């Protein structure tokens, strides 16, 4: 195939689909390449869909997208070995359409999204791995694939090839990922009858619950766990920084197994049938780790560009937004007959700088470093908070004032007054 396209998109995840859809819809000649058997077959996410980002691309997506449950309740748990201290937020406001967040199953959702891209007019070829970028000196002019005679040319190549992004690394566009900038998450899906899920989580119809967890489940490593309700299944997973796994000597599947056996989690999964086990890297380096995202004839979108807000567990919305903005940038340049040069494509970065994408990443730019250097947030504090609750809630003839003193002493013994104040300051700085 020695054809030339206006744009080639590498990858059919949320960012690639957003970019391909946006450009095809505007009439550009778009080719999208995907290495999986079908779009979604290589993709892994928790998964929560944030409506806003998709609405800006496909406003009526609710009509036919495969959505599991809309979320009406968020639980946050801080776990010790045998207990948790938690907070819930549930509101009937979340029951009024249009719904804000949904659980989804990515293999199904990505297939649907890809169908929309096809309908918009893009050519999608699956089972094709892009092996190299074709360069004309410093300029990307096309891609080579593992298919015979697989050189294809385009004015611009959009790299939506995910967290590992071998293409950008081979081309020297960005450096190798560092273990401290990525989290490794493992996850299982457990199937249960719909009624069981609804009774167990106190929801009806299409309503769903999210449980976000931190504390002893990560065994001192920087990370979090989660449990999401789908229509007829639950997804449960845990993710920690790769540098911590390396240092700690813990295997990710052992960590997941231990988390599943926690006395507060086990009953929620009881009777379920596990049907898939997945693993995925999440780029969590934040603002300071975002690489160069545009150049001569190329743009980087989604995970490949480190577009993940780890603090708020947002990624797919940043992926869709960066994909859409990249597509719009190309459309604008094409309309004005301007070349896809680095100087012109810089508009992509500028638009992102002015959007929630870069603003949010910038806000939490110090968070990765603070968490790496302060593991007490994942060990000592969960333990102290749980013990304090236990002390105050156990009725044993000891007066409350004595109990309060016990709790205070416990905190000071474990972390010292200076340490406590320092931690509070660090957290305040990180969220400021």
């Amino acid at each position: 195939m020695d054809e030339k396209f206006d744009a080639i998109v590498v990858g059919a995840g949320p960012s690639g689909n957003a970019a391909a859809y946006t450009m095809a819809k505007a009439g550009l000649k778009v080719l999208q390449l995907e290495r999986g058997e079908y779009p979604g077959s290589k993709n892994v996410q928790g998964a929560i869909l944030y409506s806003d980002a998709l609405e800006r691309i496909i406003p009526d997506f609710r009509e036919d997208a495969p959505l599991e449950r809309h979320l009406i309740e968020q639980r946050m748990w801080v776990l010790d070995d045998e207990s948790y201290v938690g907070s819930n937020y549930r509101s009937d406001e979340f029951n009024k359409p249009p719904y804000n967040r949904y659980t989804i199953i990515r293999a199904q959702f990505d297939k649907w999204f890809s169908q929309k891209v096809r309908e918009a007019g893009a050519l999608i070829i699956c089972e094709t791995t892009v092996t190299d970028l074709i360069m004309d000196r410093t300029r990307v002019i096309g891609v080579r694939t593992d298919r015979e005679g697989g050189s294809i040319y385009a004015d611009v190549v959009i790299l939506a090839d995910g967290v590992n992004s071998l293409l950008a690394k081979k081309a020297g566009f960005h450096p190798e990922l560092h273990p401290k900038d990525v989290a490794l998450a493992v996850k299982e899906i457990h199937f249960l009858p719909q009624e069981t899920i609804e009774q167990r989580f106190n929801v009806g119809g299409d309503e769903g619950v999210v449980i976000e967890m931190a504390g002893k489940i990560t065994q001192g490593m920087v990370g979090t766990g989660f449990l999401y309700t789908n229509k007829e299944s639950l997804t449960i997973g845990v993710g920690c920084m790769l540098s911590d796994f390396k240092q700690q000597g813990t295997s990710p599947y052992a960590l997941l197994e231990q988390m599943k056996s926690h006395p507060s989690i086990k009953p929620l999964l009881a009777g379920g049938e596990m049907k898939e086990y997945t693993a995925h890297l999440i780029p969590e380096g934040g603002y300071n780790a975002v690489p160069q995202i545009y150049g001569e004839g190329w743009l980087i979108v989604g995970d490949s560009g480190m577009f993940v807000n780890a603090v708020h567990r947002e990624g797919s919305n940043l992926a869709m937004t960066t994909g859409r903005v990249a597509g719009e940038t190309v459309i604008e340049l094409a309309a004005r007959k301007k070349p896809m040069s680095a100087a012109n494509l810089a508009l992509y970065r500028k638009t992102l700088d002015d959007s929630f994408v870069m603003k949010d990443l910038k806000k939490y730019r110090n968070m990765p470093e603070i968490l790496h250097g302060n593991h007490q947030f994942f060990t000592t504090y969960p333990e102290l908070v749980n013990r304090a609750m236990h002390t105050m809630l156990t009725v044993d003839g000891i007066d409350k004032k004595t109990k309060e003193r016990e709790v205070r002493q416990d905190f000071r013994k474990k972390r010292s007054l200076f340490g406590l104040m320092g931690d509070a300051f660090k957290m305040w700085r990180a969220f400021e």
Partner: protein
Amino acid sequence: MIKVEEKLFQNRYRVDAEHPHINIGNPEVCQVECKTQQCTYCCPAGCYTREGNGRIVLITDGCLECGTCRIICTEFRNVEWEYPRGGYGILFKFG
């Protein structure tokens, strides 16, 4: 001891026989020079096992294509990692 094989058994794969997409660059480096051998415990699919003589054996059939082994081999960069050929490897049913 948790058997990761039991988890992987639930997954769908299209194995590209005789074309592993990951290779160890120089096996001697793993056996002799690498003291930490983090690939043996970090890989979420348990693809890397250590033999009695310290040799690392890599079987990619259960690979989840996450990229962990590629990134954690920081000291020796001894993991040659490519994506499987188009259509091969893990096929997520749910993802």
